């Protein structure tokens, strides 16, 4: 039997077959967590690492999850906190960077695309450009757009996550769409 609903996943994590439940839990939300992390960190490699840490934290804390919000809302908050902590640590590392050599480039891994066929490279670059254009938006516009466009969350849930009103959200969403249309004008059909 496959576990594919939020309640079933929660119950399985708390009481059932833990390993199977963890797998289902991660697969259900991995894209959401990764995408959220990527928006904060702007690095695929970092987003992958943070995603794993988020799921580990969630798996350990699942028993204390009270269900007052949706799992996505809960995971979003964990992801955001991990990302902001990571960014803070990176800033401290930069201050002391003259003591150690940390010149490695942790940007996107698209340099590795040399081995991919051309059509796949082009497709990947298009998606990456799209995601990076989103990342250029101011934080609230970016998060509103992503949570509504990618995750299709209702406005009231997004408002709860971002701590803003529904009216303010809609204004942010409009501004985000308008700016992206200008930024990605080259891709207009």
């Amino acid at each position: 039997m496959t576990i594919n609903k939020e309640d079933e996943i929660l119950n399985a994590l708390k009481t059932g077959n833990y390993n199977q439940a963890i797998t289902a839990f991660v697969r259900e939300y991995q894209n959401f967590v990764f995408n959220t992390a990527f928006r904060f960190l702007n690095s695929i490699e970092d987003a992958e690492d943070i995603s794993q840490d988020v799921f580990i934290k969630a798996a350990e804390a699942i028993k204390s999850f009270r269900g007052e919000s949706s799992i996505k809302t809960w995971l979003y908050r964990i992801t955001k906190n991990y990302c902001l902590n990571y960014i803070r640590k990176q800033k401290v590392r930069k201050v002391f960077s003259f003591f150690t050599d940390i010149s490695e480039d942790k940007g996107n891994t698209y340099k590795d695309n040399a081995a991919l066929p051309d059509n796949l490279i082009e497709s990947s670059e298009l998606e990456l450009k799209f995601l990076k254009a989103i990342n250029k938006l101011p934080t609230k516009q970016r998060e509103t757009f992503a949570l509504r466009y990618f995750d299709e969350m209702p406005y009231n849930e997004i408002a709860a996550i971002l701590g803003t009103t529904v009216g303010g959200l809609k204004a942010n969403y409009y501004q985000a769409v308008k700016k992206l249309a200008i930024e990605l004008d080259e891709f207009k059909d």
Partner: protein
Amino acid sequence: MQKIDLHRMQELLPDYVFGKLDNEEKALFEHNLQYYPEIKQEADDAKRVFQRFEQMDVDAFLNSKTKNTSVAVHRKLENRPKRFGKFAMVKYYLPIAAAIALIYVVYTKSDTNNSLSKQEIVAHQTKEFVSVNDVNIIIDSTSSQIEIDETTEIVISNNKGVFSDLIPDTETANNLSDKLLSQELAKIDADELLITDNSNLNLLSGLEELDETQFQTFLKELKK
């Protein structure tokens, strides 16, 4: 169909572009586009841009990045050290305990160095340590102050040298020396003409005979 304001049109635009409006809202929006040509232009531009990205399979892209996440999570969960297991003891608690022990040892050792022990004073040879009362002072009414000062200066500087050898901190050594000598000087009655070595206290030989407890008591008395 009613006319809606510009603000409301702007709120509806994104969902209209992405096809998320219900039929009623969609009809209302399209009806009002005639009143807001700039909104119509923005909606058309956005649709043309996002149509390209709608064709793109972002989920497939994300799946390619996250396909190993569940495996990695399982591996990390299995390798996670237990808080109270042997690994945690060695990695976390032993170093912390060692650091605490080291700090305690350093603190108590520095405290010991600052205190005088009777053995140190005795071993350091009290023959160099001179008491004011060991010096014959003849005081007359006119020159007493000068003679006392000169004599005490000699005594003080000599004793400070002794104390400095015992106590690495020169300031502490000087302070202790001054304290002891000022106690001695306070016992000298300026009206007395002569202070001989028959006076009551001979620190030099007295210290040799003190045991540890007596010496500590002696120091406490000095402080009083």
